[in-house]
């Protein structure tokens, strides 16, 4: 195991985060604060409780997930796309590191950054809405699992993309809609019966439902199913990345 190699990639990526601290941390926190002001305070005050949870508190897990997903994908995809774009990938390809070590470095850094951001948003939410966490260990577990899984997904997008437009297309066109339609702002019980069935094809439903359960003990789908789906997605991403590195797809001629 090339521990120094993993550390080098991880530190390099984390340094990039701290260098662009303003864009990395402040912007998502500001956006989330706006959500809390608009949905939590202004609109939320006119909405009834959902399963005995105030609307302002109800949307917290969804908003954290929304940011976690977007940040994990954008951090990891940008992290591996940049060396491809700048040509510095030659060094990574000629270094004595395995694909798994490269993955730990990039995905580890991207996931660390998005977990930090998730916790920061939770802290920001506390300013606007009082809430409690019923299962803190599970909350952290969901946070970590989701961050790692979607950082892996972002890494795949970064490998696949050959333009900045493509890099942004997947988060904008697929992930954001899925998150909005994944129950971030509503319980799926509120949907018409047909849509309640259709929405179960949206993987983000399971993430938000499981994460919300760790806060308030309420869930749209069984927690075990949520955990199973998240692991399933993690394994799918891992297998895909393994295949990419094995075949050299899009990276090694």
């Amino acid at each position: 195991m090339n521990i120094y190699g993993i550390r080098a990639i991880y530190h390099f990526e984390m340094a990039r985060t701290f260098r662009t601290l303003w864009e990395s941390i402040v912007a998502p926190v500001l956006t989330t604060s706006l959500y809390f002001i608009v949905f939590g305070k202004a609109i939320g005050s006119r909405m009834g409780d959902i399963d005995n949870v105030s609307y302002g508190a109800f949307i917290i897990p969804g908003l954290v997930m929304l940011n976690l997903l977007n940040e994990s994908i954008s951090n990891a995809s940008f992290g591996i796309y940049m060396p491809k774009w700048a040509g510095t990938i030659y060094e990574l390809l000629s270094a004595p590191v395995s694909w798994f070590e490269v993955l730990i470095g990039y995905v580890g850094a991207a996931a660390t950054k998005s977990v930090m951001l998730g916790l920061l948003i939770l802290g920001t939410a506390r300013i606007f809405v009082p809430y409690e966490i019923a299962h803190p260990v599970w909350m952290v577990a969901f946070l970590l699992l989701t961050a790692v899984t979607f950082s892996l997904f972002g890494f795949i997008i970064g490998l696949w993309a050959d333009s900045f437009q493509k890099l942004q297309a997947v988060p904008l066109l697929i992930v954001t809609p899925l998150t909005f339609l994944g129950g971030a702002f509503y319980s799926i019980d509120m949907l018409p019966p047909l849509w309640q069935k259709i929405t179960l094809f949206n993987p983000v439903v399971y993430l938000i439902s499981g994460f919300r359960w760790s806060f308030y003990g309420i869930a749209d789908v069984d927690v075990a199913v949520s955990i199973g789906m998240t692991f399933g997605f993690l394994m799918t991403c891992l297998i895909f990345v393994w295949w990419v590195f094995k075949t050299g797809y899009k990276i090694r001629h």
Partner: protein
Amino acid sequence: MKTATAAMTANSSTPIISVRGVNKTYAGGFQALKKIDLDIKRGEIFALLGPNGAGKTTLIGLICGIVKATSGTIIADGHDIMRDYRAARATIGLVPQELHTDAFESVWATVKFSRGLFGKAPDAAYLEKVLRDLSLWDKRNAKIMTLSGGMKRRVLIAKALAHEPTILFLDEPSAGVDVELRHDMWRMVRTLRAQGTTIILTTHYIEEAEDMADRIGVISKGELIVVEDKAVLMRKLGKKQLTLTLRRPMTGIPAGLSAWPLVLSDDGHVLVYSFDAQEEETGIAELLRTLAEHGIEFKDLRSRESSLEDIFVSLVHRPKGTQE
């Protein structure tokens, strides 16, 4: 002790890089390399010459692990670059042709990254020495994007040396750098060689290869057409020319001189005699005598040996199958 000495002797005589039967065909069907066999000796400076698109960078990319070979094997410092890629790659440093740099990083951060990436424990003192040797120490905290092209080239060299490689690839290191940096760089290359590093370089400045290299390889259209000791190559393929500036112009070469390989310039003022540098008897004395007999006088005489560049051009443009 005896065994250790014997092992060392064997080690120094075995090639540090051994390329066997390597072919590379890209996905589009373009065959970039055709059955390459090449041994690089330990501790030498090997210059790989060839026109643009000949396959130099592909060959370097294959040895360094950036490009996958279609077939064949490559051993670097005793390690198969596929099966034992970690050990093989740890011994190699690569300075790429293009100025690929992390624009937003500082010089120090990027060099530190390279050392770690290649599996070496942090060593600030060593990295400081590398940066000082390359006159980069004062710029260690500067962002790479603020540096000139020449300085960026130095950063790439520093990155390649950060993990103390025993084999260093320099792909067109002189491209776009000023004379001063070029001289600095060649001084550094000589120092590295003196410390035991094997250096493989590609260059467009053939006089550099002539000046620096121990051995020369010429690659053309994906084939390695010549690999030879530089001195041997120049002796074997080199030609000499004797140029005579005539006192009175001639309209043609007199019949009595038709046996000599002479070329008369268009204005009739210059007569050029080409002869083989290897020949014991150059024929100059005989030619001068014959000229005198024909009453041809000259006011100046100079002889010149063909440069590596001349040899290179003749090799690359030689019809297939005629190489020696």
